[in-house]
């Protein structure tokens, strides 16, 4: 565990060695272990211990230099301070962050803090291997057409985050996360090979229910083993919660105050208070939702993380802010800062409110279960997307898997054409979200 006294001493020693400067340090130390089961049934095991530190130094002109390094060693930090002091006059001269003060940083969420503080005892690598091997075997036996589980892993990670500065703001947090994924390949007689999987994440080894992951991964793959082709055309579309949040996340500039200031957003300052989506859509960033595993208590500036309303009944109500964007917008930081040479912002945990149900559209639609290749098929500044996906044709309630399909459209048009939202939220890797129905999108089918 990082000792706050040691960090305070480090800061004090640096200030003594380089009088007249202010600085802050943020970062984390991570220890993790991962096991994977190879197709030969042997194990692939790895472990690491890593430290990442971002050092920000304010010179006497209040200009700032930022250096990233991999150590909290005093001599290395001092060398980095010198580099930062040289960088400062050469870097940006406007809209500079100020050294955060404890009075502005807010109080961390106490219940989440208690949750986070209870870090779990790590399991032995043998226990991890046994748990994963059993799960892989179960998945292989789930259905005769399942041929293997080429992508699988079980990881446990202990993280110690910290923020500290020379004005006395000091925060630390320890947390643990255990995560897994199982991605299987299968092929039915006369059909093409298909792949599908599932994931799981908890804050303790014992809580991770591998049986559930196996069950969902197996059911999902089996559902895709007999795919059909359909004519390309316009179809009503339902996105699973995961697919909707993956797509929305690729257009993060919609909620980034930094992107708006940089003119790299589909929104402008004037968009706040305007309708951006169907009135059915309400969305918040909800880091302390009960399904959020090991939520961060503070951001890269040490500001307490909190829930932020983004969209209410289709109207843009809020943005992610750090201290500099908040100053520009005349508001307060929302605790979304990611600190680097240039500060950015990003989501913690989306929460799309449940609706009144999908209604009849669920009987005849294209169901998009999982969008793929977001890094290639999304043009975030153009607002457009054209993405391969895994999904189904649902016709009169009958569900058939699709292969070789893409879905294309514009995000702003899509958000305004939401026609229904399911009653039940799904847990996803990016937040919670119910399935979301859209009136019409372009679907291309291979062949």
């Amino acid at each position, binding site marked *: 565990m990082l000792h706050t006294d040691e960090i305070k001493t480090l800061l004090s020693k640096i200030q003594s060695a380089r009088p007249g400067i202010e600085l802050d340090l943020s970062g984390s130390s991570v220890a993790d272990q991962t096991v994977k089961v190879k197709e030969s049934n042997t194990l692939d095991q790895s*472990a690491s211990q890593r430290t990442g530190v971002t050092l920000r130094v304010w010179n006497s002109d209040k200009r700032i230099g930022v250096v990233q390094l*991999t150590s909290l060693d005093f001599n290395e930090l001092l060398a980095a301070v010198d580099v930062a002091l040289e960088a400062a006059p050469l870097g940006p001269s406007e809209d500079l962050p100020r050294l955060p003060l404890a009075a502005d940083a807010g109080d961390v969420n106490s219940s989440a803090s208690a949750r986070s503080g209870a870090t779990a005892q790590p399991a032995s690598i043998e226990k991890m291997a046994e748990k994963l091997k059993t799960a892989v075997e179960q998945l292989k036996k789930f259905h005769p057409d399942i041929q293997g589980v080429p992508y699988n892993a079980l990881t446990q990670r202990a993280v110690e985050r910290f923020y500290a500065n020379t004005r006395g703001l000091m925060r630390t947090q320890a947390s643990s996360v255990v995560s897994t994924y199982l991605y299987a390949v299968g092929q039915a007689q006369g059909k*093409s090979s298909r792949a599908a999987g599932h994931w799981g994440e908890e804050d303790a080894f014992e809580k991770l229910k591998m049986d559930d992951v196996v069950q969902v991964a197996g059911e999902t793959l089996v559902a895709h083993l007999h795919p059909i082709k359909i004519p390309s055309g316009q179809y009503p579309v339902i996105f699973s919660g995961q697919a909707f949040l993956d797509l929305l996340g690729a257009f993060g500039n919609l909620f980034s105050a930094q992107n708006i200031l940089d003119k790299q957003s589909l929104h402008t300052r004037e968009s706040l208070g305007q309708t951006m989506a169907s009135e059915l859509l309400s969305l918040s960033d909800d880091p302390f939702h009960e399904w959020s595993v090991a939520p961060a208590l503070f951001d890269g500036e040490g500001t307490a993380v909190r829930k932020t309303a983004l969209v209410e009944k289709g109207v843009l109500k809020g943005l992610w802010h750090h201290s500099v964007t908040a100053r520009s917008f005349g508001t307060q930081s929302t605790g979304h800062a990611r600190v680097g040479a240039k500060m950015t912002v990003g989501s913690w945990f989306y929460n799309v409110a449940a609706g009144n149900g999908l209604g009849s559209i669920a009987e005849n639609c294209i169901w998009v279960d999982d969008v793929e*290749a977001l890094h*290639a098929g999304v043009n975030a500044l*153009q607002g457009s997307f054209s993405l391969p996906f895994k999904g189904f044709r649902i016709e009169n309630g009958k569900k058939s898997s699709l292969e070789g399909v893409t879905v294309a459209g514009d995000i702003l048009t899509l958000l305004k054409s939401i026609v229904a939202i399911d009653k039940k939220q799904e847990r996803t890797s990016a937040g919670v979200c119910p399935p979301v129905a859209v009136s019409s999108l372009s679907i291309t089918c291979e062949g």
Partner: protein
Amino acid sequence: MRPLLERDFDSSFASVRAAQDGSFGESWRPLLSLLLGHARRSGADFSEIFLEKRNTLRVSTENGKVTSVAPSFSLGAGVRCFKGSQDVYVSTNDLSREGLRWAVDQALGMLGCSSRMLSSIGRDVQLEPLRDFAVLKRKDEWLAACAGVGALSERLLAMSSSLNKNVAHLQSDQTSAFRDWQEVLVAASDGVFARDIRLHQLARAGVNCVDGTHRTSLHEQRASTGQPRFLEEVDLNPIVDEIAASAKVMLRADYVSAGQYPLVMANRFGGVIFHEACGHLLETTQIERKTTPFADSLGKQIAHESLTAWDEGVTEGAFGSTDMDDEGMPAQSTLLIENGILRNFIVDRAGSMRFGHPRSGSGRRQNFAFAPASRMRNTFIAPGKFTPEELIASCETGLYCKKMGGGSVGATGEFNFAVGEAYLIEKGKLTKPVKGATLIGTAVDIMKKISACANDIELAPGFCGSVSGTIYTTVGQPHLKVDNITVGGRA
């Protein structure tokens, strides 16, 4: 004294506690041979230690102002041990004797080996004389010869100004330059002891253009390996010219109609089609996972007879070139496919040990946190006999893909990639520009449909993300024709 940021970041590492004399080399021999011997005595069949020091600098501008100067330094080590068919990998930031001992013992523990007493005398593994690839090309001088922040800022601001003058309906512009200097040392229980220095540099510009409801965003980049003065000397005008020309046609381009098209793909980054559709499937990591349809295809026809393809690490200055791979093996040229017949795989040490294919100098990783894996370097399709115009003229209707975006390949060989700039082909001629196309298909199918190659091969730099992280690569090809492919777009 020269300012650190102008010329000599590396001097900041002089104080790093474990770097001993400030650089990797002979001074590490006693400790590494001792640790490797310790691993061998404890039961490991093979072990390898990878040390890495990194010094990067990125400068960015937005809308005519410097918005970021980002130096970073990192140190790390990775220890890999094999026993029978098992292997483990442990990484750490701590390069002290104690830190490396911890990493070796962790690895041995995970392999089920009992850790023996670490002897303080004797060199248990006899390492070969150091193969110093850095000395051969005077690479120790590279870092000091790189452009400093002032020079980079000046060049980027000039490019930003030029974008403002030349790009219509410009809403915002971003330029950036980075250099990534990396020193590595590899020591292994088979005696390998090798050092190298790598230097990757890249200049990039991007724009966002808006006119009413019409939007487009574009970017271009130039990159090099092992050329210290690259960022000071590279001509940035073509970046601006290409962006301006593309913005002019793409801002009001219609979305492509979904369907099946014959396709002509431009050279340079068009090579991403081979990278995604076939290259990944020739890596031995895919054979191990049983996720390639080509595992048993050596010597067999897997592509159209017009197709010959290479993967190599030797082209001077190319982004994927390496004098040695991350397992200490010198770079090679590897003929992958010859006239449609599979000749070789892309093979790392583990792939060679498990499948018997000869190593191809392809063991690569993003950094010390990743175990090396078989990865592509400079991968390209060889030129053919046609001209690009002949390929276009051979299509009654079709799609011409001038600029490609990224792509990916899945566990069943299904690939996809995005098209940044495309034109319809009608009656053998290019007509209107279209956007929003995604090409999809399966590797086995598409490789047989690449039916003609032009004579104008060019390479383009890129990044490849996979099992051992994100690495520098080059893709390339001449203009080529695909008889038929599914184009995802608007229906």
